[in-house]
């Protein structure tokens, strides 16, 4: 049996795939393939029927995600069996109907594939034995219904209807998920058997109201309950087979299905009773009332469906065993007559080209057979005796007045029931009278006639069922109903009698009153006001659409207000966030954080203060002059020099060297860029903004300074001591900084040269094909700098030798591959400046990108060499050679790594400089802002006055 259940569920999905894949086959063949799913499914169900009628519950369990309690458990009890029958049987009819309904222009395989997917999802909902799994299928029905409603995607109403359905039912699905998770928390399991058995624990839990409301959120949205009912009429933009299937028999029933499914677990409290009854009653009335004034055939049916769903909901809310039986019964009855009505409406639409009641009329003459079928189904909808609708409606009346609720509530439910009868008759009458009787049809393009034979068969089957159930319920529906309701109620199953005649009693009186009242109401309304002129407005839908639009606008406004793409704002938030996290701990505990820890202050010799001034005064000058970029750059150079000197002063010669070299190259890059940038920054921001930024800057400076200060006052306990001790004996280097760079933390350097190499590549990529116009251009030939260039020829070899020297000595004295690489680059760079790029490059003939590549490979290889000897990457070795003549030669293997560094740094630095120095001029303009007027420049700034 478990495999049968699995197969039952798998069939629709498998066949959906087949249909989608076989989309080139003839339409009838495709329809038959599709119909295999429900037909085979029904056969499988049939095989399981004896067991079900015997009261057994069939299970199939697979593991999916036991970690969160989500197991692939399928569970077939009587109720699920009944529902599965409904889903499959009506599914088969709908497929047959759809084959003939769909026009040549529409893709039948697509519709059928979607329908089958939906069928599978719906079956999943029905036979899930695990609540999480159920919510999975639940959302799948929302999703597939979205695809089905939007099938005619070129139509705006279809798109909107689909989206509305998705938003509301999908949102409800999220609520359901929340509810299910809560139930799982309370019960400790999502297994349906466990949950149904834990009703008392659930109801006693403090979380019960939350769980209940979240689950009801899912149920009510799915079953189109007031006030979120309006998506259903909107969904009528779907092709009729879809409406017939989803909006009468299956999807909307998923809500009430779940209400019934969880009835044993959730029902039985006042909260449940009042909430569900009230919502159901309101939905019933609102739906029915709206149905009367709807001019669209399908719209009328949709509102009627809402009303009937309200009725079913109300029945489950009432909660008495009889009411539950009635609810289950009405689920069946409504599915049968409403499906046939939708199909009939589809036939009318198909044949007449319109669904507008106001244009229709007198169809009984033109298509008598269809009319007869539709009229019978309508009467069932109205609850006329001898038809199935009558039976369940009478049970409803009985249940409504037989609650043990307080009197006001009983009056309310009673009146609601009566009104339900009246209004149901009224809209059914309108549907029948204005479509099939009277004069008309008006203004149609073609003369309508009976549809193809096969299109009517599904309707006939359903109408026959209406009549059969209505007349001989005990022979037809009784076992099904018993199995279905019994599965919900269990031992509480009441004694009931499925018969047309129960004698004279209150329900009968209410039925009669309802019929009479309905007839009176319809004709009264028709007399009093011109029904055709009534314009109904779905306030709920309008409100929803409006709110959704509002949400989009709000989303877009808020987003644009927050993320306006401004760098200034982005940086401001970053700086502010950093300030907050840095300042808060200090402010919360200033006593210990900034304690004056006297013993750790070191007095500073006065040259230090000179450096201090030398560092800060240019910085502040740069701040004052920043709009004059050249001056600011000069000031930055000053600060950079002072920082380097400070590093020397504070025992960090390597740092000083690096900082000097890097500052030099940065200066060159800045100046190269300035040729393509405006010479000054305009003053753009107002004073308040500048004051704000100034304040932030001050706070930032104070906070960072205070942190640095406080940090320096703490005792210093570092692992570096061990590095000092092990550097010479184990890494064979005197210069511990260099040893750290190439040995202890060589991997950092590894990353660092990679960054440097990539920077070169990025610059190359950005400038390779770029053409730019300089900001301003000097007329005339380049200045003749042959004298300095000539001197550089003397100097450059010495600098190159110095580079080698720094590289070789790095391990034992300040220097190393990085510094050496830059030192080698600088004389070349100066030659670029003095001789011109073309002149240098034509003679140099160097492929810097390859240099980078070779450097990286060398660094890699030197690091990996140790791996061959069974030591980790970058393990340094040491070679002490005794060479004749030369004497002792020490070769730490880190040298090879440093060579890689040297090559990468040289290559990347030169790549950047050469790319920036050899930018091609723009094709379209020579300069951005014209030629420099040499005589008009300000000696103060070097800029041209505006």
């Amino acid at each position: 049996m478990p495999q049968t259940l699995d197969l039952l569920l798998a069939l629709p999905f498998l066949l959906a795939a087949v249909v989608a894949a076989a989309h080139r086959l003839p339409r009838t063949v495709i329809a038959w393939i599709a119909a295999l799913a429900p037909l085979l499914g029904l056969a499988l169900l049939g095989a399981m029927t004896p067991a079900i009628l015997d009261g057994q519950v069939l299970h199939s369990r697979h593991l999916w995600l036991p970690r969160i309690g989500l197991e692939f458990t399928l569970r077939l009890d009587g109720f699920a069996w009944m529902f599965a029958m409904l889903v499959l049987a009506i599914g088969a009819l709908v497929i047959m109907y759809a084959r003939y309904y769909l026009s040549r222009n529409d893709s039948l395989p697509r519709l059928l594939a979607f329908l089958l997917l939906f069928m599978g999802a719906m079956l999943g909902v029905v036979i899930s034995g695990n609540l999480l799994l159920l919510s999975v299928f639940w959302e799948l029905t929302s999703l597939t219904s979205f695809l089905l409603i939007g099938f005619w995607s070129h139509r705006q109403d279809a798109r909107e209807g689909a989206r509305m359905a998705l938003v509301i039912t999908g949102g409800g699905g999220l609520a359901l998920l929340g509810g299910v998770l809560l139930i799982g928390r309370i019960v400790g399991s999502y297994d349906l058997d466990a949950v149904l058995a834990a009703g008392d624990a659930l109801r006693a839990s403090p979380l019960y109201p939350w769980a209940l409301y979240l689950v009801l959120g899912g149920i009510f949205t799915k079953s189109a309950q007031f006030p979120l009912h309006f998506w259903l009429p909107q969904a009528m933009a779907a092709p009729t087979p879809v409406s017939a299937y989803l909006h009468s028999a299956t999807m909307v029933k998923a809500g009430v299905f779940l209400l019934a499914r969880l009835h044993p677990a959730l029902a039985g409290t006042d909260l449940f009773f009042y909430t569900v009854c009230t919502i159901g009653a309101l939905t019933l009335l609102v739906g029915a009332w709206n149905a009367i004034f709807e001019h669209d055939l399908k719209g009328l049916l949709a509102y009627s469906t809402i009303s009937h769903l309200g009725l079913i909901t109300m029945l489950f809310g009432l909660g008495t065993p009889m009411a539950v039986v009635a609810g289950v019964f009405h689920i069946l009855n409504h599915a049968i007559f409403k499906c046939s009505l939708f199909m009939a409406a589809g036939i009318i639409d198909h044949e007449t080209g319109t669904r507008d009641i106001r244009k229709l009329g007198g169809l009984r003459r033109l298509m008598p057979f269809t009319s007869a079928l539709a009229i019978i189904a309508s009467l069932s909808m109205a609850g006329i005796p001898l038809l199935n609708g009558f039976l369940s409606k009478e049970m409803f009346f009985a249940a409504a007045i037989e609650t043990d609720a307080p009197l006001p509530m009983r009056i309310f439910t009673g009146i609601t029931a009566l009104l339900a009868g009246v209004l149901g008759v009224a809209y059914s009458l309108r549907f029948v009278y204005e479509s099939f009787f009277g004069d008309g049809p008006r203004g149609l393009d073609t003369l309508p006639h009976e549809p193809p034979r096969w299109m009517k068969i599904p309707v006939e089957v359903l109408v026959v069922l209406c009549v059969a159930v209505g007349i001989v319920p005990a022979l037809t529906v009784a076992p099904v109903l018993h199995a279905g309701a019994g599965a919900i109620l269990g031992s509480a199953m009441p004694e009931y009698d499925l018969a047309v005649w129960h004698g004279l009693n209150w329900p009968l009186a209410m039925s009669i009153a309802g019929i009479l009242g309905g007839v009176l109401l319809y004709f009264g309304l028709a007399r009093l006001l011109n029904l055709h002129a009534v314009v109904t407005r779905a306030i709920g839908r309008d409100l929803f659409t409006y709110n959704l639009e509002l949400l989009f606008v709000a989303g877009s406004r808020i987003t644009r207000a927050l993320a306006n793409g401004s760098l200034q704002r982005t940086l401001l938030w970053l700086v502010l966030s950093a300030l907050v996290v840095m300042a808060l701990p200090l402010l919360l505990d200033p006593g210990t954080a900034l304690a004056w820890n006297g013993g750790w202050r070191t007095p500073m010799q006065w040259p230090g203060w000179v450096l201090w001034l030398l560092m800060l005064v240019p910085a502040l000058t740069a701040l004052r002059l920043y709009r004059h970029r050249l001056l600011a750059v000069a000031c930055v150079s000053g600060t950079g020099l002072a920082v380097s000197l400070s590093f020397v002063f504070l025992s960090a010669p390597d740092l000083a060297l690096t900082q000097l070299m890097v500052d030099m190259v940065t200066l060159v890059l800045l100046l190269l860029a300035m040729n393509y940038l405006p010479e000054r920054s305009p003053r753009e921001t107002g004073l308040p903004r500048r004051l704000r930024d100034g304040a932030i800057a001050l706070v930032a400076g104070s906070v960072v300074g205070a942190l640095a200060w406080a940090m320096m006052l703490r005792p210093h306990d570092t692992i570096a001591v061990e590095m000092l001790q092990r550097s010479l004996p184990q890494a064979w280097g005197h210069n511990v900084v260099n040893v750290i760079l190439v040995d202890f933390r060589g991997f950092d350097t590894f990353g660092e040269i990679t960054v440097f190499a990539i920077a070169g590549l990025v610059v190359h990529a950005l400038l390779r094909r770029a053409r730019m116009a300089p900001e301003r251009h000097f007329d005339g030939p380049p200045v003749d700098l042959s004298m300095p260039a000539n001197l550089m020829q003397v100097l450059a070899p010495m600098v190159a030798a110095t580079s080698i020297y720094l590289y070789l000595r790095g391990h034992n004295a300040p220097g190393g591959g990085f510094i050496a690489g830059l030192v080698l680059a600088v004389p070349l760079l100066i030659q670029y400046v003095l001789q011109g790029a073309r002149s240098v490059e034509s003679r140099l003939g160097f492929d810097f990108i390859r240099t980078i590549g070779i450097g990286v490979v060398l660094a890699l290889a030197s690091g990996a060499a140790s791996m061959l000897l069974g030591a980790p990457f970058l393990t340094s070795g040491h070679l002490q050679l005794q060479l004749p003549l030369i004497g002792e030669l020490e070769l730490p293997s880190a040298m090879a790594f440093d060579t890689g560094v040297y090559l990468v740094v040289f290559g990347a630095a030169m790549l950047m400089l050469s790319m920036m120095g050899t930018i091609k001029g723009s094709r379209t303009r020579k300069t951005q802002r014209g030629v420099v007027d040499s005589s008009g420049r300000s000696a103060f700034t070097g800029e041209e006055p505006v």
Partner: protein
Amino acid sequence: MNAAIDLVLIALLVAGSIFILVGALGLVKLSDVFRRLHAPTKSSTLGVGCVLLASVGYHLLQGEGLQLRELLITVFLFITAPISAHLIGKAALALLPGHQPAPPPGDD
């Protein structure tokens, strides 16, 4: 002997300090770019040269051996100082067209 070297070094240092100071003073005191250009580019260079010489002697005196390599710095300075002065002068001339002298007299 050491005292004599000490005295030589002191003399070098004093001279160096004076030249450096003169260069810096000239940089601040003189009123015109071209005049200012003279003071630091040479006085300072010479001053630094003196200090470097003193440094060589000083480290020799401290028993650290003859560190002639510091003279290389002087070599560098003497090669680069004219380049710097030349270019700054050119730049100043470009920015102060009023200072531009008459074109050179024709040949012959």
